[in-house]
């Protein structure tokens, strides 16, 4: 008797989509000054999800002005505990609207409903809940009383975790007393606009949060706007560098969460079955569109054969397809340029002589897809071992000794994440202490929590998000110039 899983499609009736979404400025939905709109597509189908306002200099101006007004007249003066209450309210509304948000995120982003429902949206709610409680306890954040808020913070977020990254940006900014102008990614603006509605529902004072949709040009206007006191950016290392350079001659503060090429290290004494799950979760979670993905598998030579064999079998079980299907593990690639980049680097891996393997899957006929891909026989000098692919492509490198593992793991300009799999406590702690990365997962991978600081060493960023340390980039120290 054959037992296969029938399609189990999440209903979308809970989501009432508008045809068009406007900017959210000063507490109101505001049409773009230039009158232009752009489409956001569902990457699984190619269909238009909705139209979004194209932000221009004028729109940014207006939003910054609204944020400044709200800062000066309301937010700065409000008792911190009251500020916190708004964040608690927002957290609760997110919980109440969680299924709707999950469906919206899946449609706009292409990621599986299982992830938006079980990971993204619950973390969004918990992020607001966590930061709400910080608002009136900032004297314990580490700067004593030698701090102030910055004022208007400009925030730019990527398309891989649209609503989660919004929460990572907005929750700490508001808790620390700043007001915000946020620009979501061009390909995933939907949940940010639903969040704008949530701000209205929560009766958040007008102008405390402003959301401008648009493309890179809109982002540039925001970064270079003189009314912005601090910028927070999550995205590619290239863009992060450009932002850092473009504000070099200003006093603007900057926090960055950038790219990575995380090493996932499997020692010979690893709990192998859980390690295989961790490898899968490390690189195929969210289609590998994860800055902290475990995209380099470093496996000890004497267990490499067993690990790779198990990994291939496990990869063959990955269910790729309709992101709204509750049983889908691997959804759509978010956008066409990204798929092209994944393909280009995959081809580079093949051309450079690494051994290429893909799980056999039937790709849907419409939409953007990439099968789970594994490279073995990869050398440190291969592009697929050095460059961030940001897709479901894993590069495997072997090592013999623990020292060699660390040396290879650290041999990258990035330093965001790493994984360590071992049953031996002393080895795990040794490896964790030697790895140059901001987040080390041992015997697990891709875990996130609002209490846990996240951020990178080296070219993976500046500052942390989450935890006590995540407040610091939003608090202006009176000691620093």
């Amino acid at each position: 008797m054959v037992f296969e899983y029938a399609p189990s499609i999440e209903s979308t009736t809970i989501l009432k989509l508008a045809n068009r979404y406007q900017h959210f400025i000063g507490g109101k939905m505001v049409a773009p000054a230039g009158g232009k709109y752009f489409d956001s597509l569902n990457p699984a189908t190619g269909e238009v999800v909705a139209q979004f306002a194209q932000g221009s200099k004028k729109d940014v101006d207006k939003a910054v002005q609204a944020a400044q007004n709200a800062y000066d007249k309301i937010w700065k003066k409000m008792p911190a505990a009251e500020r916190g209450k708004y964040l608690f309210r927002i957290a609760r509304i997110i919980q109440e609207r969680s299924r709707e948000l999950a469906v919206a995120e899946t449609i706009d982003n292409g990621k599986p409903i299982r992830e938006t429902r079980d990971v993204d949206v619950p973390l969004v709610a918990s992020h607001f809940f966590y930061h709400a409680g910080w608002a009136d306890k900032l004297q314990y954040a580490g700067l004593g009383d030698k701090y102030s808020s910055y004022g208007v913070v400009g925030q730019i977020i990527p398309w891989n975790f649209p609503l989660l990254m919004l929460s990572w940006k907005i929750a700490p900014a508001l808790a620390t007393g700043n007001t915000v102008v946020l620009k979501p990614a061009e390909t995933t603006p939907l949940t940010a606009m639903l969040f704008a509605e949530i701000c209205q529902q929560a009766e958040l004072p007008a102008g405390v949060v402003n959301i401008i949709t648009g493309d890179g040009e809109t982002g540039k206007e925001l970064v270079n706007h003189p009314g912005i006191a601090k910028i927070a950016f999550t995205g590619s290392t290239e863009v992060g560098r450009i932002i850092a350079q473009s504000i070099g001659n200003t006093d603007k503060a900057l926090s960055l969460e950038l790219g990575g090429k995380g090493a996932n290290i499997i020692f010979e004494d690893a709990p192998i079955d859980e390690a295989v799950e961790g490898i899968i979760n490390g690189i195929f979670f969210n289609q590998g569109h994860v800055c902290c993905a475990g995209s380099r598998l470093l496996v000890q030579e004497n267990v490499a054969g067993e690990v790779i064999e198990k990994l291939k079998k496990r990869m063959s079980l990955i269910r790729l397809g309709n992101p709204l299907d509750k049983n889908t593990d691997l959804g759509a690639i978010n956008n066409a340029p990204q798929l092209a980049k994944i393909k280009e680097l995959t081809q580079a891996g093949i051309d450079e002589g690494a051994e290429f393997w893909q799980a056999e899957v039937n790709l849907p006929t419409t939409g953007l897809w990439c099968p789970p891909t594994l490279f073995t026989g990869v050398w440190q000098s291969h592009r697929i071992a050095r460059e961030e692919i940001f897709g479901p492509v894993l590069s495997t490198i072997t090592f013999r000794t623990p020292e060699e593992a660390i040396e290879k793991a650290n041999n990258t300009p990035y330093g965001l994440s790493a994984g360590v799999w071992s049953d031996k406590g002393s080895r795990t702690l040794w490896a964790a202490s030697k790895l140059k990365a901001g987040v080390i997962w041992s015997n697990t991978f891709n875990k996130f929590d609002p209490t846990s600081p996240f951020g990178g060493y080296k070219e993976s960023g500046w500052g942390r998000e989450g935890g006590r340390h995540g407040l610091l980039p939003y608090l202006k120290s009176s000691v620093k110039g």
Partner: protein
Amino acid sequence: MMRINIDSTPSSLKSFLNELPKVDQVGAAARAAMLATRSIKNDSKKKAIDLAISMVDLTTLEGSDTPGKIKSLVTKALHPDPSNPDVPHVGAVCVYNDMVSIARAELDRIGGQSIPVAAVSTAFPSGRASMAVKIQDTQDAIAAGASEIDMVIDRGAFLSGDYKLVFDEIVAIKDICGQKAHLKVILETGELVTLDNVRKASYLAMAAGADFIRTSTGKISPAATPPVVLVMLEAVRDFYNTLGIQVGVKPAGGIRTTKDAIRQLVFVKETAGDLWLDPRFFRIGASALLNDLLMQRMKLQTGYYAGRNYVTID
């Protein structure tokens, strides 16, 4: 094969078992929790329910069991839903030693020759008896018509590190079973406590010749927890991939609802694989479960929720 490979001295057994990869409890639980989110609907659910029914080891293991109860049980085993002949019969009935002959005779009388009778054995559930008694227990059951023997391991010996004793007992019971009966080895995972022990005990049982490894007696809680079943399924998968010997798995205890049962099938499908989606290699030890499966089956057929009085109580 494995029985030959391991020279079964106490020290080599011990080092073999201790060198098995360890299990990270959190990771195993996370994997089980993820698999538990699988959504099985419509046709798949219908197939899964019938598959699950065919895998049920319909069980009664009470001190108060009577011949009448056994006869009623085997009747239900053969025709789980008397009004609906499409419903497959269960995988086996599982009873105490002294009820085997009654169960066998009744099954034969009503046309249930294809349904095996499983006997719990070796001083079930505690296993606290001499080897002579355990052997006699098994021989009696086989003589009475049991074609499956569900033996318990000596958990005390296992936990004290005397793997050799456990191994030898399984080998001895397996020898008695010979070609006449399949041997299921009950690990009683609730008493082994750690998943590392579950893995070790699984390998120990397989190496000693078990045809099936079974989680629990049903008398101890926790019983067939999702991570335990997962680890045992990994063990039979890896054993098969290494030696080509396919050992079955039987979770027992705590599986009461259709949802629980379908979850088990998902574990099987995504861990050991389709080869195990077969009553010859996967059984679910249960009693109340069968009625829930039948009620869910009715719901799928009629479109409305079934009532408890539309299925038979035993």
